[in-house]
């Protein structure tokens, strides 16, 4: 599970040698430490259009409020409308003038509200914001572009300009150095108030291995009320399938850290490992095979009986049975589809039918880069994981009506026992072929799940967010 190459590169001699011979330079990614602030360095906030009363840059104000809430050290250009927006958010923002800024001035994050960019000509404003600032981004820095979903744009030029942002954001992600990430967040009109949980996640080291993503934020599925950002899942019950080890155990751990009572589920053969995990987290466990006919009913009975329902359902359980298609047995095919794709549907259906998921509840699926790009030797697995994307897309509208959200994470190369068992060459290729030249950790997937699970993420539904360090595969 250890990435010895990354360790080598991060020693002085190792860095010298590997750099000389042109090998990848995986940076040390900052990761969230308990109790740490959301962001530890200065944030530069800019806008691509007027932010005034009738202005089109509608997100500057809401972003400024979030930055105030997280007590960020914010800078803006000396632009009257930007400064007014900052003042209205009670943000004591500093001034950044690229013409007069000292060489050493650095930013931990660049946030650019591009909603005011109404035509392709005006994309030059994005250049004007990023050009003098991009080389000032600190290690493990963040670039966040905010736009309007092209499908919600009133005119073709606006829709085109907003769609163009995806290319900018992804290219910035690939240019980014030293563990910096880049994201695009499309915020639906009137959903400006739903940004906070997403901004907090993207700005913080919790999103260390998430880059090059396009995230959509819409109207809230249910009123979230006031969110306790220190323990957002306090009083919530979370079901995590496949929780005995690997990514599932990490998800259980992070949800418990955020305050949830975790009900871990795994097959009976894993009961010892599973009970150890949930005991450590103060949760409880349920041994069941999710492909059993009565499994959905057993799960629903347990959740309703023991906890009066559930708030967060994470369909993490998954298996691989790799063979090229011509050599794959029917059993190998069926088992993967049954566990990875059919079981999440059956469990979700049952929980919904019995009204077991409480209001402002969350369903989270686990897809995979394999499901997006397709992997040789994984026709069954790729099919199941692409199906998970279909699963959330199919359910999202109906769930929204019930005040629930549904999203999926799509892990790329994550350092687990599964990847440790890969042949060296394939493993190295998987690890290095992304923007940060390294594999992610189970915690990276877990943090992303926790962001979906947060009661503050009521406006985040129907998203597939890859946790892949902007993998070259499936981009």
């Amino acid at each position, binding site marked *: 599970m250890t990435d010895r190459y990354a360790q080598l590169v991060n020693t002085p001699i190792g860095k010298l040698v590997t750099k000389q011979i042109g090998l990848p330079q995986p940076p040390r990614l900052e990761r969230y430490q308990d109790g740490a602030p959301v962001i530890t360095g200065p944030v530069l906030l800019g806008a691509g259009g007027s932010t005034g009363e009738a202005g089109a840059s509608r997100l500057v104000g809401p972003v400024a409020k979030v930055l105030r809430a997280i007590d960020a050290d914010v800078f*803006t*250009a*000396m632009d*009257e409308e930007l*400064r*007014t927006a*900052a*003042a*209205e958010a*009670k*943000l*004591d*923002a*500093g*001034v*950044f*003038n690229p*013409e*007069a*800024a*000292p*060489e050493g*001035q650095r930013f931990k994050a660049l946030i650019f509200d591009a909603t005011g960019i109404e035509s392709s000509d005006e994309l030059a404003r994005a250049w004007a914001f990023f050009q003098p600032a991009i080389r000032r981004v600190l290690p493990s820095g963040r670039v966040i572009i905010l736009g309007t979903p092209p499908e919600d744009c009133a005119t073709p030029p606006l829709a085109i300009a907003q769609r163009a942002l995806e290319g900018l954001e992804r290219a910035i992600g690939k240019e980014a150095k030293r563990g910096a990430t880049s994201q695009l967040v499309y915020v639906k009109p009137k959903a400006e108030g739903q940004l906070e949980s997403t901004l907090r996640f993207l700005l913080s080291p919790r999103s260390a291995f998430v880059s090059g993503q396009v995230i959509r934020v819409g109207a809230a599925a249910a009123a979230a009320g006031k969110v306790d950002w220190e323990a957002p899942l306090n009083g919530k019950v979370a079901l995590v399938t496949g929780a005995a080890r690997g990514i599932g155990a990490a998800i259980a751990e992070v949800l418990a850290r955020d305050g949830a009572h975790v009900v871990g589920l795994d097959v009976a053969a894993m009961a010892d490992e599973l009970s150890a995990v949930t005991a450590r987290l103060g949760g409880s466990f349920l041994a069941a095979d999710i492909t059993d006919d009565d499994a959905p009913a057993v799960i629903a009975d347990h959740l309703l009986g023991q906890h009066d329902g559930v708030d967060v359902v994470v369909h993490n359980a998954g298996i691989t049975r790799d063979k090229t298609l011509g050599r794959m047995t029917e059993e190998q095919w069926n088992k993967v589809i049954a566990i990875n794709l059919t079981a999440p549907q059956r469990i979700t259906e049952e929980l919904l039918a019995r009204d077991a998921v409480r209001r402002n509840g969350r369903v989270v699926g686990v897809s995979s880069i394999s499901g997006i790009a397709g992997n040789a030797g994984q026709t069954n697995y790729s099919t199941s994981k692409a199906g998970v994307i279909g699963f959330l897309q199919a359910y999202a509208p109906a769930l929204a009506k019930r005040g629930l959200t549904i999203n999926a994470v799509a892990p790329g190369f994550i350092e687990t026992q599964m990847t440790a068992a890969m042949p060296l060459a394939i493993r190295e290729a998987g690890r290095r072929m992304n923007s940060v030249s390294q594999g992610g950790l189970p915690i990276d997937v877990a943090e992303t799940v926790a962001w979906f699970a947060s009661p503050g993420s009521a406006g985040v539904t129907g998203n597939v967010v890859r946790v892949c360090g902007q993998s070259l595969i499936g981009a």
Partner: protein
Amino acid sequence: MNATARRVAVLGGTRIPFARRNGPYARASNQDMLTATVDALAGRFGLEGGVLGEVAAGAVLKHSRDFNLTRESVLGSKLAPETPAYDVQQACGTGLEATVLVANKIALGQIDCGIAGGVDTTSDAPIAVNEDLREVLLEVNRTKSTAGRLKALTKLRPQQLVPAIPRNSEPRTGLSMGEHAAIMATDWGIGREEQDELAVTSHRHLAAAYDSGWMDDLVTPFLGLERDQNLRPDSSVEKLAKLKPVFGGPDGTMTAGNSTPLSDGASAVLLASEKWAKAHDIPVQAYFTDAQTAGVDYVHKREGLLMAPAYAMPRMLARSGAALQEFDLYEIHEAFAAQVLCTLKAWEDPVFCSERLGLDAPLGAIDRERLNVHGGSLAAGHPFGATGGRIVAALAKALSETDPARPARGVISICAAGGLGVTAIMEAAHD
């Protein structure tokens, strides 16, 4: 005690030309310069031999023997020795603060007239004994027995011969004024060119004032100097652009051209009640109507060292009911071009005005055509204690020349070391 405040008249002021450090005034002491300036003022208004209510003045860099600098200057001047005097010391705010003190006593009826002024020499700077040496000498002095004294003297060391030279630095940060101003320039994103432009404007304005004879009654030649030595009438942005940064590191924006040089000089202003002015048949140039000082926490709260005037101004404006734009003339002390530009930006900035000043709306921009119209400190130089008097005198004269058909007001803003700022309002005496 007087129940109502009296109007305070500014009758006029004068100064000696300001010299650069180690220039023509290299051998002149603070007392020499202040005495000469008080005499010049007394001569102009026929005050020789007269007893005034008081003289308040001061210097920033002072010898320990000058504990009574202003009183000694009065005793050496043509004023009657019965004129009381005292020293004021508030860094670069000294001259304006002295004016406030004299004005307040006149307003309250405690005195009828007085002189406010200030002086500084950076050439004849006080050099103190080494602090270690001082302690040894004091110990010797405390010890009674000869043996004990000899024992104390054994603590003498050669390195104690190195004297303590006054430094232009903030005791609590160790940074020089210029380094602090460079931090402010960075904080506010002030560019090199706008600073150089402000400096050039200052030189052009002052040169024009001298060329037109406007300065004649404001300046009294001293030790062969007739104009401010620092004045460069042919200064240009192109020339200034060639200078290397002196503060803020190699990519800094502050140069010797857009920062004031260390200088020597003195100024004095005559203030009085309207009744006294009338009795002495001296026309009133302007009224000194309000003032405000402020301090900022530049040590712990990250505020800029020289930003205090930005805080003083809105408090004064709120009291007087005036908007920042309603003044006919603005006198902002140009300690550094960056300081002026930071102050102006701060007043225009919604964030600063809301978060730091607690205002509902920004104070807004001023008409730059009305700023330092007869030149500022960048051109004239800045003997710390003398700048307030220079500005009060020049503003009073400028106000006296405004259209008599309508009221005119001027405002002063002076930053000072220690995170201090002094502002004041003056009105033309057109009634």
